[in-house]
């Protein structure tokens, strides 16, 4: 077996996986806080990518500033969507909430098509293109930056949930909304914040995908679907699970693309995550890190 080929696949998997992980984190945050599955996560990602692209190529904003503006906009978008569309649904059936997010995804997709059309738009090169040699294999610098960005963002999120007052209050809300209310926590505010955070991390995922692929189009929204096996694999309510699950699915995808596709004639890359998902759910129905309730003995 060619070791360089293997390593190359591994690194590709790691990069894609880390982006999956990021988007999955957004998914998990909304699920934990509000109990809803946000099926428009992929569209959040797309909106972020297109907005950043616009800032970069049309207004010539420097990359890091463009990211910050995109974040601010994404946060606003998330909070507004929560306020206008999801808050009136508090207390209604879970299925209706999920259906609404599905509708939301169609609307966002249509709006983007309206504004930018369906053609692939080239994404400006923001990271230096010369590859770096890591051991025997050349790795594009964009990949390294992508992994770096994801790591920083995840670290920030983790410390936010662990140490900040709002973060702890959000975890308390996830644990029990009624008790959180009795502590004087504004549960509605916590919902809005979780949507804002989810929109931010998805936007980051979109931007990174744009830089790596070199161009963006409608297919970005499929990421929302891709992330579903990731979160179910990791456990719907576990951020750590989302990260590990994202990396596993990313690597698995690239390995099956590299080794199985030539044997079966293509397509293994797309199916592999879902096969793994079914297998894991058969043995660990809560996912790898999903919470089973604490039982006191």
């Amino acid at each position, binding site marked *: 077996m060619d070791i360089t080929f293997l390593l190359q696949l591994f690194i590709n998997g790691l990069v894609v996986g880390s982006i999956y992980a990021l988007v999955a984190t957004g998914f998990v945050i909304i699920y934990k806080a509000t109990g809803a599955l946000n099926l428009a996560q992929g569209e959040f990602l797309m909106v972020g990518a297109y907005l950043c692209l616009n800032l970069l190529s049309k207004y010539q904003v420097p990359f890091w500033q463009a990211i910050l503006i995109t974040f601010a906009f994404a946060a606003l978008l998330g909070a507004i969507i929560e306020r206008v569309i999801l808050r009136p649904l508090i207390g209604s059936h879970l299925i209706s909430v999920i259906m609404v997010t599905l509708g939301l995804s169609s609307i966002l997709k249509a709006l983007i098509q309206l504004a930018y059309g369906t053609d692939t738009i080239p994404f400006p090169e923001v990271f230096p293109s010369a590859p770096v040699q890591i051991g025997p294999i050349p790795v594009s610098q964009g990949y390294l930056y992508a992994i770096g960005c994801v790591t920083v963002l995840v670290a920030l999120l983790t410390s936010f949930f662990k140490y900040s007052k709002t973060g*702890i209050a959000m975890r308390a809300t996830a644990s029990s909304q009624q*008790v959180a209310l*009795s*502590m*004087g*926590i504004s549960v509605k505010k916590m919902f809005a914040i979780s949507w804002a955070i989810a929109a931010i991390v998805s936007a980051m995922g979109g931007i990174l995908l744009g830089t790596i692929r070199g161009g963006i189009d409608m297919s970005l929204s499929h990421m929302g679907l891709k992330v579903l096996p990731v979160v179910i694999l990791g456990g719907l309510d576990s951020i750590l699970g989302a990260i590990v699950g994202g990396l596993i699915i990313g690597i698995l995808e690239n390995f099956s693309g590299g080794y199985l596709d030539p044997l079966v004639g293509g397509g293994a890359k797309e199916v592999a995550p879902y096969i793994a998902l079914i297998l894991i759910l058969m043995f660990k129905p809560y996912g790898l890190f999903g919470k089973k309730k604490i039982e*006191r003995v």
Partner: protein
Amino acid sequence: MLIISNAEVIYNRVILVLKGLSLHVPESKIVALLGANGAGKSTTLKAISGLLKSEDGEVSSGSLEFMGEQINNMDPEEIVRKGIFQVMEGRRVFEDLTIDENLDVGGHTRKDAAGFKRDKDLVYDYFPRLRERRNQLSGFLSGGEQQMLAIGRALMARPKLMLLDEPSLGIAPLLVQEIFELIKMINTEEKTTILLVEQNANIAFSICDHAYIIEGGRIAMSGTTEQMKSNSDVKEFYLGTGEGKEKKSYRDLKGYKRRKRWL
């Protein structure tokens, strides 16, 4: 401090649970609210703390007045900021947060960092067992320790009025004793007014100044602890020390009528 007059509470717009309940909690006292299951004790507390809303209930008439201000149907977060804090029935600690984080959440509405820190030390002084295990998940605490945490969490908010919903529920008798002594101590040392809901009349009488008995959504009787303890009905139905030692039977019509009034 807290005056409830003729309060009515309706759940789901249909079920009338409180039917004109009135009670008065004077400042820095302990008032107990006793009654059978389904009498409306917890509903009364939730009406005060605003948690009714999350259960589709509302105060449909009457008034709840806290320190001269109407608090009918206010949002719970506002009511907490006004100084009322409810310790819910069954402890309800955040099981997947550590003890320390639980206390942090209790002080969520606090703005003064110094007072916050001081109060956390104070809570750990009241409940030294919690300090030992401050970084453990609270889900692994025993029932009694969870109750202590729930009370400590309430203390973190520095409430003027603390609502305690059955702190003795499901806890070993010795620990119940300890917890009630601590409640009394909090009342005298922190000057926290307490409205206590209990089924265990004996233990409630050991610390309260004043007691109300609630029955079918109305106050059936009230008085100081001494008056209540010496009342023959209370003795028989709540303390189990009445004179009627022989078996009750429907032939004993008088007793039956008395009982009917109570339950």
